[in-house]
């Protein structure tokens, strides 16, 4: 990958150590090893203590269980507040709030990357734009298809063009060529190409100022709620630094929630809840999945990175580095709806969820990027560098290690601690004490269950009340899903990074064998 070291931001689009040379490559490689090394050494330390110092391991497990209670309580306070805020924001008339603020100059540019998804999937998303309380003539849509997607994707895109082309300011189809140098196949390279196509084919011909364009980088299944554009524009026009901010809605995986199996539902809401919690902690918030960003800002940074898996969060760190740390995410506390991960069979769903979460947790690749760019960019304030790195390192470390310690490794002293340990009061009390605290922590799930119940769309007639009851009880699966679909894929991602077995982009399969239900009765 060619990098012009005369460019003050030459490092901006580094994807992996192999993109660099010499000492820079070695340093980046070291940073890639770091998250996996931290997680593995933590788990190894726990296992070693369980064998040789089981008393210390048991005390650590108990202390950890206490920590988990307070952490879940602390996070649930954020979740509850964000839920209330989202309820409030969904009831507001954001257009009325915009009444006193000049906003006619704002153009919404929506990117829908399409790769082998059906017409029904994207049509639903485009219809969502039309149903929004925003003049569609102030919305430009790019259907971003891949050359490798073949004639099927082209036909789908053309059909969308035919059916919706005259309803918006513009609808264009961009065809991302295959095998461009310096790219990996995936959403990042596709939408980066699409954004440039929009600039050349839509913005420049109409002489539209880049700073007046808000880009919503959606997934193909992202369906907006009615006030999304008004809410987004209001935040854009009222935030302190509109061009130094990205705008993050709450991703609700609601489109197919009633049709999704229990595993998919738990994981879908767990992901949404984590984003809701982060919305109340903006200093820890990076962009995730569907998000919006001013066109001028993303244009100056060279668009989304074309050579990484986690382009959705990486774009935030690109912009953080590009604007010398003077960049933030504005949490909108307003939802967009997407598909929960569902395959035709339960096993298929489980596999898809695993792969999807492996891709998401591969966001650990950002740690190397953050450490490297903050070293290369002396203009970022030191405290911002430290905080950014610490938050990400702790986040990915705890994602992998905490569930495994709490629900697996932490109990190891009971099995391998030896006769002397097994004869102690501590050994007999460990299960009781740890379980008591974990049960207290699980009570936080009652809050989650209650909130999820408020977020789900109305029950379709084909389902009985029993399904509603299951929707509530499903939360008992959380300890299992945390280990199987968070910790383990997270650990795999970090080990891959550690050994340079880089992950490629995995497209979550999306199907439409159901009629989507998207309105949350919040």
């Amino acid at each position: 990958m060619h990098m012009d070291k005369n460019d003050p931001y030459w490092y901006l689009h580094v994807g992996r150590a192999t993109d660099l040379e010499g000492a820079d490559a070695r340093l980046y490689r070291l940073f890639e090893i770091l998250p996996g090394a931290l997680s593995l050494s933590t788990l190894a330390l726990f296992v070693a203590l369980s064998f040789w110092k089981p008393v210390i391991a048991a005390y650590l497990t108990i202390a950890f269980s206490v920590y988990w209670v307070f952490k879940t309580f602390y996070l649930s306070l954020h979740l509850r507040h964000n839920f209330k805020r989202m309820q409030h924001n969904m009831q507001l008339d954001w257009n009325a709030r915009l009444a006193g603020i000049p906003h006619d100059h704002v153009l919404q540019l929506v990117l829908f990357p399409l790769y082998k998804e059906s017409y029904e999937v994207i049509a639903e998303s485009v219809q969502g734009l039309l149903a929004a309380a925003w003049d569609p003539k102030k919305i430009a849509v790019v259907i971003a298809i891949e050359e490798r997607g073949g004639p099927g994707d082209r036909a789908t895109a053309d059909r969308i063009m035919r059916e919706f082309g005259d309803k918006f300011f513009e609808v264009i189809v961009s065809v991302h060529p295959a095998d461009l140098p310096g790219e990996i196949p995936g959403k990042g390279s596709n939408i980066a190409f699409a954004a440039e196509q929009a600039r050349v084919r839509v913005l420049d011909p109409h002489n539209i100022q880049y700073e007046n364009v808000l880009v919503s980088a959606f997934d193909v299944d992202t369906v907006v709620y009615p006030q999304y554009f008004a809410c987004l524009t209001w935040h854009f026009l009222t935030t302190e630094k509109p061009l130094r901010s990205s705008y993050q809605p709450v991703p609700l995986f609601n489109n197919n929630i009633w049709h999704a199996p229990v595993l998919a539902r738990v994981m879908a809401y767990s992901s949404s809840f984590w984003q809701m919690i982060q919305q109340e902690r903006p200093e820890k918030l990076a962009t995730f999945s569907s998000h919006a960003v001013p066109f001028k800002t993303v244009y100056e940074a060279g668009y989304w990175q074309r050579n990484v898996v986690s382009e959705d969060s990486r774009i935030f760190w690109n912009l953080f580095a590009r604007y010398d740390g003077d960049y933030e995410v504005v949490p909108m506390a307003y939802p967009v709806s997407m598909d929960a991960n569902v395959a035709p069979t339960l096993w298929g769903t489980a596999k898809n969820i695993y792969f999807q979460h492996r891709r998401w947790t591969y966001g650990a690749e950002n740690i190397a990027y953050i450490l490297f760019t903050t070293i290369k960019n002396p203009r970022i304030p030191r405290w911002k560098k430290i905080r950014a790195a610490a938050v990400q390192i702790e986040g990915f470390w705890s994602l992998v290690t905490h569930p495994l310690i709490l629900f697996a490794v932490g109990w190891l002293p009971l099995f391998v601690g030896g006769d002397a340990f097994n004869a102690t009061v501590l050994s007999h009390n460990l299960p009781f004490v740890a379980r008591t605290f974990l049960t207290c922590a699980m009570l936080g799930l009652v809050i989650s269950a209650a909130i999820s119940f408020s977020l789900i769309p109305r029950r379709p007639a084909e389902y009985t009340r029993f399904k509603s009851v299951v929707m509530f009880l499903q939360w008992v699966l959380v300890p299992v899903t945390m280990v199987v679909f968070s910790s383990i894929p997270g650990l795999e991602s970090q080990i891959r990074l550690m050994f340079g077995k880089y992950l490629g982009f995995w497209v979550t399969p999306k199907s439409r064998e159901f009629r989507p239900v998207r309105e949350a009765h919040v």
Partner: protein
Amino acid sequence: MKPLSPRKRRLYLIALVVLFFVVVPIALLYAGGWRYKAGFGLVQIGGIVVAVPLADATVTIDGDVIGQSGFFDRSFYISNLAPSSYVVQVEREGYYPWSRTLVVEPQIVTTASARLVSKETRALLIQQATTTSVSSTTRTVLAAEYNALLEAFETAATSSEVRGGQLVGMQLAVEEGNVYLRWPDGGRRFPDNFCARPSYCVDEIEVERGRPHAISAVFFADGIVYATRTGGVFFSDPDVRPTELTVPLYPHGGADVRVVDGRLIVKDDDTLYEIEGL
């Protein structure tokens, strides 16, 4: 509606961090076996675990009922016990009561496995016949099997080692008319019944000593069955801790005992019996 204010979040965080540092030492001390006793301050406690082999048995400690065993609940953890000695008793209708005086030491859990012996054991007379059958008082076996049972008594049963079950690794010896149970492996943890208290264990238990004179001993049903010259055949649940359970199985002195194919066989003169119900 505004996001959660940084001030509020900081307050929550500080409050929870303070609570964490208050709760953790309490939880660790509790788990490690420390309790607050009025007038004594912090004291170290211990515990007792009693394993019960059958359902519907009542467990008491110093006369206080702890609970009743169920289909799944066969183990009782009695916690928060001050260091001292306690009499644990397990009783079930139709069985001999099992009792042990167990010493509790600080931060250690004393363990014991109750052995419930039925009061309904009986000796079935074994007879030779052309077909095998069982009635309420006799068992008829083929001649070959009968002869095999007799042959088992031609070899002395004065020492053996257990390969499986609760007594695995223990050695049984009959020496000068006394029966000893030994734990020869000093490197491994002593079985509970060899320990007068958790911190003091012995490597030998006298199962039977003095009169009557023992002639043979075998492992059977997680205990020891021994025969004496004058007293008959007995079952014992050997334990260095009082009170050892000894149950008469066959009352005639001079009878000998062997285990053949998992069955307990008594030979009295030329007559064979099988002990059932143990």
